[in-house]
């Protein structure tokens, strides 16, 4: 009898040739903890996962194609919208790439202001990570603690750059406007208050035994796998690889500042969490040094209104909040770029989910995805 055309209630139970397969569950694009619109189809056996099939593309906006029809200056506000949790890092990478292509020299004051912006944005991005990590394990409070402190940073950035989430502040040749009055005082106040609040986070979550047991020995990734799949940023450093673009290929004056790179040992989720918390402390050190030694001078180099880079191509990379952001620009001497390709960290990390998660529990998969700290605007572009 043809069983497929009936409703399942009316099917006859034929016990010998019942189709057997693992249960397929769809963690759909509408989900409270998949960091944006991300879908994955999981085959599970009880509580263990057999395989995962990620599906991306729900936030694809065609940014790379739009770039072919805009001038370099007109395209710059769109770059903010890639990794929207730490937008100034994206802008910095794009502007550095175009400046290298056009061989423009940026004055030192602009470089120091850029470093302050980038590091403040890094702290803000890691605070979202902290909140989201708490939410994935089931605690509601860390999310609000993270966002309350993020308000302080966003107020400082609003005073400097004009926006809170998307800025359009760093331009080709320097920054858009100079530092306003009262900025240094506000920044100093922030640097003094913030370590106290960091200590509160440690008491709330990092020392908590339930949290530590949820994160330790979960999602261990080996060094070879990570290097093969193109990981970067804190995800890579969790497994003991000491690689940070700010130390290996310094840009925008990073060689002048004194900071350390935290590196993990085992490569589990807890190490990646602790690395990001330590990075916040190192970022505060960098901001303090940059603010105290702000050189005087111009805030932008003299650049013509319409940018026409010479013919050529360039790939430039920088250390964003989540990992390595790279811009590959091919220019044929026109006002518009001929081809612009963006390399984002989230795209490589999401593809690692399929092998990082097999054999773990469902609850662990969510935690591992949170530890990669992906943002879908960056993955889908």
């Amino acid at each position, binding site marked *: 009898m043809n069983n497929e055309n009936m409703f399942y209630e009316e099917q006859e139970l034929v016990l010998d040739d019942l189709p057997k397969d693992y*249960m397929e569950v769809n963690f759909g694009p509408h989900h409270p903890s998949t960091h944006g619109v991300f879908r994955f189809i999981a085959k599970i056996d009880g509580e263990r996962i057999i395989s995962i099939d990620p599906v991306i593309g729900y936030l694809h906006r065609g940014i790379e194609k739009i770039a072919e029809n805009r001038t370099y200056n007109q395209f710059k506000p769109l770059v903010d919208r890639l990794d929207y949790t730490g937008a100034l890092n994206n802008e910095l990478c794009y502007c550095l790439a175009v400046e290298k292509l056009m061989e423009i020299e940026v004055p030192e004051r602009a470089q120091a202001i850029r470093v302050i912006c980038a590091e403040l944005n890094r702290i803000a991005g890691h605070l979202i990570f902290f909140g989201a990590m708490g939410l994935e394990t*089931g*605690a*509601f409070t860390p999310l609000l603690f993270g966002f309350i402190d993020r308000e302080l940073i966003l107020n400082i950035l609003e005073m400097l750059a004009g926006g809170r989430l998307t800025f359009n502040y760093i331009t080709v040749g320097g920054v858009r406007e100079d530092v306003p009055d009262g900025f240094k005082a506000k920044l100093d106040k922030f640097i003094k208050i913030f370590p106290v609040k960091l200590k509160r986070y440690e008491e709330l979550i990092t020392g908590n035994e339930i949290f530590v047991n949820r994160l330790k020995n979960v999602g261990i990734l080996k060094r070879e796998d990570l290097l093969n799949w193109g990981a970067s940023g804190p995800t890579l450093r969790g497994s003991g690889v000491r690689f940070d673009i700010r130390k290996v290929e310094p840009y925008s004056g990073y060689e002048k500042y004194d900071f350390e790179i935290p590196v993990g040992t085992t490569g589990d989720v807890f190490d990646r969490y602790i690395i990001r918390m330590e990075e916040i402390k190192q970022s505060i050190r960098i901001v303090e040094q940059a603010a105290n030694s702000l050189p005087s001078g111009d805030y932008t180099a003299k650049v013509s209104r319409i940018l026409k880079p010479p013919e050529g191509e360039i790939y430039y990379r920088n250390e964003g909040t989540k990992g390595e952001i790279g811009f590959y620009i091919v220019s044929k001497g026109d006002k518009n770029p001929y081809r612009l390709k963006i390399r984002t960290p989230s795209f490589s990390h999401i593809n690692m989910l399929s092998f990082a998660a097999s054999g773990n529990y469902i609850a662990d998969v969510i935690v591992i995805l949170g530890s990669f700290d992906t943002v879908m605007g960056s993955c889908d572009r």
Partner: protein
Amino acid sequence: MVWWIELLWSLLKLVIAFAFIFITALVLIWMLRKVMGHMQYRRGPLHHGPHGIWQTVFDALKLLGKEDIIPTGVDRWTFICAPIVVFIPTLTIFAFIPFAEKITATNIEISLFFVLAVMGLSILALLMAGWGSNNKYALLGGLRGAAQMMSYEIPMIISTMGVVLMAGSMNLTEIVRAQQHMWYAVPQVIGFFIFFTASLAEINSTPFDIPEAESEIVAGFNVEYSGFRFAAFFLAEFVNLFIVCALATLLFLGGWQPSTNPVWGTIIFLAKTYVLIFIAMWIRSTFPRFRLDQFMDFGWKVLLPLSLANLFVTGVIVLVVDKIRSV
């Protein structure tokens, strides 16, 4: 003549008890939102009424007005009856809880035994909701919930046996009367801790809210319910919280103990219960969730041996003290 006055009087007591339940559920939901809000540096509901008191009433009215959706392919009677079944144990137990010396809806000799037996029925509602919704998330949630509730019932029940041994009776009113000189929380510290933890696991409150783990399986067994059926599950969870804290107060914290006056006794009993409810909400807004296997390990490998040891030691001490007294 007399028998139907008796019948009316018992019915009236039951109606008062049920009205008290619904008002308690509304008050507890408001309290949770306010307490959790202040612990997160924000205010809870603020606008309807002073400090947002009427917010829960309006939310319940809104849920009443929603469309009643029954998805295709559900097991119809199971789906419809699950919200009703979830209320039955809570309403039944409520009739046996004494608020003061003579104030209780019914008073039988084995009320503690009856209460603990009926509380086990709430697993059935969870399984019905999980199976009846035609949804894999609900199934996962329902099965997890069944595993959790079954494995935490045993330490909970055994930890109350220590109290029964010390008091010598299973009647809740008698147990409270026997705590005149010293509350049982003092000699039975381990029992109190085990009872409180295991009962938080029974009512699916964080850190044990695995059946409705919001970040993984998006509300678990609740996922296909909307409108007033969802409100039934939601209210039942808070009434369960009240019942469990009330039981803890009666068994370990002396109930209405310093006074036997009905009015003052009720007020003292309610105050102690609300302190325990505040502690449960405090825990709820601080801790993350256990993973399922760590949580089963905790139940079977830590709580169960501890509660058995507690029972054994209590039994030995009670026997020895009796022997000394009779000699």
